[in-house]
């Protein structure tokens, strides 16, 4: 197998607090291939956004990467000094956040922000940068891009702003775009448009996408593979169709059953009892064991390793792991 674009191995992120150190990510491993869309799902607090922040080196203090490694095309980036990392952010890794308002500077026109980003990372003239900017806005579906490029962010509607943010993330032709809940703040009808734009433009340019969201529907429509996080640990990772249609981890199958869909007819939704543990109260063994319908005695004592399955799937569950393969 060719070297992956991004490779995360045994990533540990910790937050020291007054009442002990909280482990927000516990030995998380995954790869993103060239041009691939990897969906990252989980409930709030599962660690999906922290994974994104760790990759671009933007973990809020006092949190820190306490173990593991992150490689971009084989080069370690988690140990880079801040100035080198800054060159990777924006240039090689673009970012799209939930709230388009905070990603855009209200004091500058869209043109100014796009041209500055393009010229910071690419060696082009002002005029060429402007041409590229117009082309980008056109691609993300902003009508009359040439006329609107000199408008300020507040002149755009929420959906249009998120398109501008996507253009900005792609301005330096990154290899990877990290999109953190890019559609959550938007209306249902606009959400679908933004998903389409994000998927199409990244496919056009061959950029890989790490799509962080709580919305399985968005993943189903967009991603090639999906990674399911639970309490800071990887539960399951695999091709999106397989995971959605035939989840192996009891958490994933419970999650899928609990989502109401347009086609379903049952009166009651399948529900997982309880809720995800807080980081300061993660149970011993498998983090999911108190809620798991198929719990076995050693689920309560040993943490299951991420076990390879057919079709490149991996599952961290004792139902599929060889006995005696405890993680760590």
């Amino acid at each position, binding site marked *: 197998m060719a070297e992956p674009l991004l490779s995360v191995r045994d990533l540990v992120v910790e937050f020291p607090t007054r009442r002990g150190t909280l482990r927000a990510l516990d030995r998380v491993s995954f790869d993103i291939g060239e041009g691939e869309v990897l969906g990252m799902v989980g*409930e*709030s607090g599962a660690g999906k956004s922290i994974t994104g922040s760790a990759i671009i080196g933007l973990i809020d203090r006092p949190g820190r990467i306490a173990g593991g490694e992150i490689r971009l095309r084989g080069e370690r980036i988690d140990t880079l000094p801040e100035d080198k990392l800054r060159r990777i952010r924006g240039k090689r890794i673009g970012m799209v956040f939930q709230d388009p308002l905070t990603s855009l500077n209200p004091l500058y026109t869209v043109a100014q922000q796009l041209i500055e980003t393009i010229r910071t990372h690419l060696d082009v003239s002002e005029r060429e940068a402007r041409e590229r900017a117009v082309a980008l806005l056109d691609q993300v579906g902003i009508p009359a891009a040439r006329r609107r490029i000199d408008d300020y962010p507040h002149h755009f*509607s*929420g*959906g*249009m702003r998120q398109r501008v943010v996507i253009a900005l993330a792609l301005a330096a032709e990154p290899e990877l775009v990290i999109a953190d809940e890019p559609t959550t703040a938007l*209306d*249902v*009808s*606009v*959400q*679908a*448009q933004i*998903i*389409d734009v994000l998927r199409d433009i990244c496919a056009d340019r061959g950029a890989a996408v790490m799509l962080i969201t*709580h*919305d*399985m*529907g*968005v993943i*189903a*429509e967009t991603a090639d593979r999906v990674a399911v996080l639970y309490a800071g640990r990887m539960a399951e990772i695999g091709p*999106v*169709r397989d995971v*959605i*249609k035939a989840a192996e981890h009891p958490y994933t199958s*419970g*999650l899928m*059953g*609990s*989502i*109401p*869909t*347009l*086609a*379903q007819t049952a*009166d*009651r*939704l*399948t*529900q*997982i*009892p309880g*809720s*995800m543990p*807080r980081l300061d109260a993660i149970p011993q063994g498998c983090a999911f064991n108190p809620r798991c319908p198929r719990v076995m005695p050693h689920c309560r004592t040993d943490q299951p390793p991420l076990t390879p399955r057919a079709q490149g799937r991996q599952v961290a569950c004792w139902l599929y792991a060889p006995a005696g393969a405890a993680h760590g």
Partner: protein
Amino acid sequence: MADALVQVQGLTRYFDVSKPWLNRVIEREPKAYLTAVADVSFDIRRGETFALVGESGSGKSTIAKMIVGLLEPSDGRILFDGQPMTGTDGAAMRKLRRRFQMIFQDPFASLNPRWRVGEIIAEPIRTFGLASGAEMRREVGRLLEVVGLGARDAAKFPHEFSGGQRQRIAIARALSSRPEFIVCDEPTSALDVSVQAQILNLMRDLQDEFGLTYLFISHDLSVVRHMANRIGVLYLGRLAEVADGKRLFTEPRHPYSRMLLDAVPDLEMSGRRRKRVEGEIPNPIDPPPGCAFHPRCPLVADRCRREIPQPVARGDGMAACFAVEEGRG
């Protein structure tokens, strides 16, 4: 309708969004009004779940607030069990108030962080003088158990609970005055999906157990599909369509209902290619003339740009659309 518990008739609400008086004088601007809700009428039948769906600016929360008396209607009226809600005062209103309750969207904002859970749940009991002392404590403990928590949780503070547990507490508070009707304003949109399933199931169980009537407000069609008997689709403050719960999903009439359905992600991975959704919601301060949906509508005709379509009864529901009216849909 004989069995209507809540009747909403011609409900309208404006908001004054004018600039301050001095600015208006200097800039010679007239007063500006935003029409949040325009001429909305529907009935909620006893024992059913009536859902209102819509996106931002559709007026769904404004309608909810008017129904529970948090906002005064600018025009139109609301009847609860045949009694008008506006203009009723004093003891009669107090009696009426006990019979309806509300569940809010954000379980982190809907519980007073400085109150113990028991106090929070007991507030309606005290306010309506339903019980006191040991009897009230027993009732609070019983309610906590009804929503799946424990009687001992009454002594805790809201911050000791997760989002889903807090929403259970909010539901216990809503039940504590033994209401017949509960307005649920996006009760699960702040929750994770696995917790959402628990809350939706709980709400259904409670409905069966206590014979509750729900007004369920949501932007999520899949959730509405799961919960509602009948559904009203709102667009920019007006009802576009009212339809039977199943019917809306199999035969949507209004072009906007169809568009909303198209926008729902395809979780079944059936491979259906969605139709591209066009345009965005216009600014409600300056809505398009005629039918507010016409700039995004695939079935637009000249008439839609000039006249506002009136609701036309169709089967068990209605649709406000010229295309449907003229059979072009």
